[in-house]
């Protein structure tokens, strides 16, 4: 076992993505809070549009989309590799953080708009379900098992979780809900937002996607190190057990025979 160093190119790419994400996010906040105009209907509350759909985009489509693809590629025998398993697990963990951001920022937006922090609306409920299912995936991941068994189990769990993603997306179409319809990813793919608000929204999407990519790269690196450490510990444990098996130990204790009573043996 040895520390597998990242290539200089990978380190450089991670840093550039991280820096771009930071600069983009700062610009989004600046444009969103100070530069863009208030909305005619919602007033200043519209400023939440620059982060809430962005984190939802990452959580719902990017993170879980990648998890679905990676899990499929793991299950497909020709492409089976622990790379896909680690990628899926890393994406779910980062996606859960973005999902919490989505639910909480949506709730904060809902209070002044709808008058309640939470409603059992189709969009909100299906999103909350997705969050719970994702936490379930992470829980399954922590159940002790052989790496291959764990990977296969998690890949099937990811496919099960992914079933909820289209339900979340189409919930505002299938049911008449409190939550508004899609602003950008609507049926006609014609955004209903224009001018500086549209550009700031786009910048928010790009910046938060870069934040996700940076987090994914770092989380993947941690997964590699975890596996490396786990396999190293397993090597040591196996070697120690084998060594114990071949090293002469203390004489075995006599078993209870005809000339011994149970009390003598247990004493």
């Amino acid at each position, binding site marked *: 076992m040895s520390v597998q160093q990242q290539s200089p190119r990978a380190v450089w790419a991670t840093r550039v993505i991280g820096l771009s994400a930071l600069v983009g996010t700062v610009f989004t906040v600046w444009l969103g809070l100070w530069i863009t105009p208030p909305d005619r209907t919602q007033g200043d509350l519209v400023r939440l549009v620059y982060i809430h759909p962005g984190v939802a985009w990452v959580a719902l489509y990017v993170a879980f989309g990648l998890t679905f693809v990676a899990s499929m590629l793991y299950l497909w025998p020709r492409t089976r590799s622990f790379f896909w398993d680690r990628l899926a697990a890393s994406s779910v963990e980062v996606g859960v953080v973005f999902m919490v951001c989505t639910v909480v920022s949506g709730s904060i937006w809902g209070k002044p708009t709808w008058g309640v922090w939470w409603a059992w609306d189709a969009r909100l409920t299906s999103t909350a379900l997705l969050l719970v299912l994702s936490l379930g995936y992470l829980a399954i991941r922590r159940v002790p098992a052989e790496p291959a068994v764990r990977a296969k189990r998690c890949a099937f769990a990811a496919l099960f979780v992914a079933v909820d993603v289209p339900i979340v997306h189409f919930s505002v179409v299938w049911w008449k809900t409190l939550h508004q319809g899609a602003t950008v990813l609507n049926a006609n793919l014609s955004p209903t937002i224009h001018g500086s608000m549209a550009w700031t929204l786009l910048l928010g999407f790009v910046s938060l996607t870069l934040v996700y990519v940076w987090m994914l790269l770092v989380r993947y690196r941690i997964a590699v*190190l975890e596996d490396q450490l786990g396999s190293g510990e397993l090597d*040591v444990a196996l070697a120690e057990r*084998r060594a114990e098996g071949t090293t002469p130990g203390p004489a075995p204790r006599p078993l209870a025979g005809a000339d011994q009573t149970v009390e003598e043996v247990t004493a």
Partner: protein
Amino acid sequence: MKYVIAGYVFVLSLLFLYAVALLWRRRKYTRLVAAADAAVGSPGGVGPVGAVGVPGGVGAVGGPGGAGGAGGGA
């Protein structure tokens, strides 16, 4: 406007804290793997393993540790 500020503060704080946690975990695991690597490679660190000559065991991986283990076992 207080709801807007609350939304931004929550989202940015959570992302920032998670990013810090990721960096901290990466550093921790890098150190742990390096420490485990050093322990395996050190003479006597895995003496019994090298002594019994486990094929593909720690001694073989560690290289110098295997030699140290053989010496310790002898």
